[in-house]
């Protein structure tokens, strides 16, 4: 293939192209497949790269991920530096004693950052809802583990109310 002429003013050997970014699986820090990169966002004035949007399929809303959360772009995937907080929705929540508190129905973030402010957790058939503050989250893996027992969570909530 004929090489392109360049008037970039500097070497672009280490740069990646939109082709390298688009249509690739995006994986977060936990290795979870978030979706497929769909669009690239570029600042209209500075022309700086801002981030990517990720398509999560027909049934799910897409996510926009800022460039600060991108760890590396490889030939086969895009790896993120962080675990995407929205992905916690649907996970089971267990307290510090191993008791199931419920299932995450909503994730409230601090502004538009990937930092969890609180989780809305539903107990299921009873329909009882808990709001758990982000500071009580111990670990997030396949499920969410809390630092406190369930009894203490309700105590905290009552105090806040």
């Amino acid at each position: 293939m004929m090489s392109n002429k360049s008037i970039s003013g500097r070497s672009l050997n280490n740069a990646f192209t939109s082709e390298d970014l688009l249509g690739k699986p995006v994986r977060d820090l936990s290795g979870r497949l978030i979706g497929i990169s769909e669009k690239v966002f570029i600042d209209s004035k500075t022309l700086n790269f801002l981030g990517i949007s990720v398509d999560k399929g027909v049934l799910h809303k897409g996510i926009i991920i800022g460039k600060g959360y991108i760890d590396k772009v490889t030939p086969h995937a895009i790896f993120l530096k962080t675990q995407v907080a929205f992905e916690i929705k649907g996970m089971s929540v267990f307290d510090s004693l191993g008791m199931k508190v419920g299932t995450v129905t909503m994730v409230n973030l601090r502004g538009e950052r990937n930092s969890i402010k609180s989780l809305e957790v539903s107990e299921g058939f009873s329909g009882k809802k808990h709001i758990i503050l982000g500071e009580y989250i111990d670990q997030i893996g396949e499920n969410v583990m809390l630092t406190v027992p369930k009894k203490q969570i309700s105590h905290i909530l009552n105090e806040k109310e």
Partner: protein
Amino acid sequence: MPVNNMNIKNFDSIIGSERSMDNTLDMQKLIGSHVLSRSGTIVGRVRSIHFHPETLNLEGILVGRGIGMKKIYIGKRYIRTASHEGIILTMEPSLLLIGKKVLDKHGKVIGSVKSVHRKSQTNDVQSIVVSASFKKDLSIPWHSIKPTTHVLVVSSTYDVKQKYFWQKS
């Protein structure tokens, strides 16, 4: 904090320096309770609890993982907390790695974990064997792996060279 909710008026106690009954766990209630890994993965349910025949100390628990899955016996050193609600482990059981996808440093799926080689019967992994369709199995040392919750990623220093069955080794 009392952990046993049994009404203490229903029995008399004959104990020395041992804990009172309301500060112990009822073994019957523990059986069937779920076992969680450190990060919240459901490992299974408690099938039986095992004690040392002489010291009478807890030695481990047998965890059932459902139909068709091999049970796992987990030693006391790997148990973080136990309550009637469930048992939480101090680690991620290495046997749960089997079946997980393995990616190379470029994010390409190279196969899935076929078996795990551990140091004796501990949870310390030495290497994993990765299998992929039409390709020879590949043994990768554990220090070259970056484990995550959902997949295993081979570190950039390890060169993954998988050959097809018809290629000479």
